[in-house]
């Protein structure tokens, strides 16, 4: 008997245990849906000139609810199709990992809805959500495919870049940086859509645990 068999067995056990704890739903359709909602929301907000701080936050909170509800329905449909429980342990872990960051973002939104007109907050809203969302999906990345952590970092870095660019008074901003709606569309819509398309071509068709 090969003397390495015990070590190989342990390695197999470790791999299987890690795989068991991993979130398994196909992310491509979810990311594509969320990305499309984000881009459509940005264009609608821009065209309708929803510019006051309060209406901006309320509008984008509505967009987030639509995106979240759609994502939940897609996850539920996948679970039903696979005869698996929707609220599975990996789903619970991912939700728990994302919750603190989303809570911070939601609280910042509430503050802006009630006191937002006292300061120019749309950009702060974009910034706060960029970071909160990035932190949330990075945390969830410990239970999801490795690539999603990169997406988290891209959100966080984009927020930082936005802050640096916004602080320079000499920069003549392109139209996209002057419209928070288009910024939201580009960051939340564009990044999700790009990641969704990437996953569409790289994710296994029948993802396994």
């Amino acid at each position, binding site marked *: 008997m090969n003397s390495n068999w015990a070590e190989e067995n342990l390695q197999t056990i470790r791999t*299987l245990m890690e795989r*068991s704890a991993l979130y398994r739903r196909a992310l491509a359709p979810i990311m594509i849906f969320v990305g499309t909602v984000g881009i459509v929301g940005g264009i609608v907000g821009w065209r309708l000139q929803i510019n006051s701080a309060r209406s901006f936050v309320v509008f984008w909170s509505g967009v987030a609810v639509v995106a979240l509800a759609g994502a939940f329905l897609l996850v539920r449909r996948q679970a039903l199709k696979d005869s698996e429980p929707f609220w599975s342990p990996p789903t619970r872990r991912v939700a728990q990992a994302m919750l603190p960051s989303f809570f911070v973002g939601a609280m910042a939104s509430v503050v802006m809805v009630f006191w937002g007109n006292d300061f120019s907050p749309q950009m702060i809203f974009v910034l706060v959500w960029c970071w909160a969302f990035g932190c949330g999906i990075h945390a969830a990345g410990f239970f999801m495919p490795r690539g999603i952590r990169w997406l988290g970092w891209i959100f966080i870095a984009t927020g930082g870049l936005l802050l640096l660019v916004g602080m320079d008074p000499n920069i003549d901003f392109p139209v996209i940086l002057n419209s928070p709606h288009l910024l939201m569309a580009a960051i939340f819509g564009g990044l999700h859509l790009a990641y969704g398309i990437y996953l569409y071509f790289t994710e296994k068709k029948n993802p396994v645990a």
Partner: protein
Amino acid sequence: MNPELFLQLDRVIHEKGRLAIMSMLAASPELSFTELRDALAMTDGNLTTHIRALQEEGFISVAKSYQNRRPLTTCSLTTAGRKAFAEYITLLEQIVRQNKPQ
């Protein structure tokens, strides 16, 4: 290699398919039949046979319910199963340590 340790390994768990099932269940509170089947690329019949063997040994419990009017079978490790799995791992680690060059 000390054959004593090898002989102490639980025969039921040591089989490849059943060890895979135990490993998956050890890292998750429960898993559905389809999750296990897809993850381990087993046929329905093969998985059913292994699950039955582990169930008879008292290592796993099987719960049947309905979700949206579809039958849902979920498996989880029992306390005895978790203990047996931990002992199995400990023995494997001892064997690995023994085989390591000093």
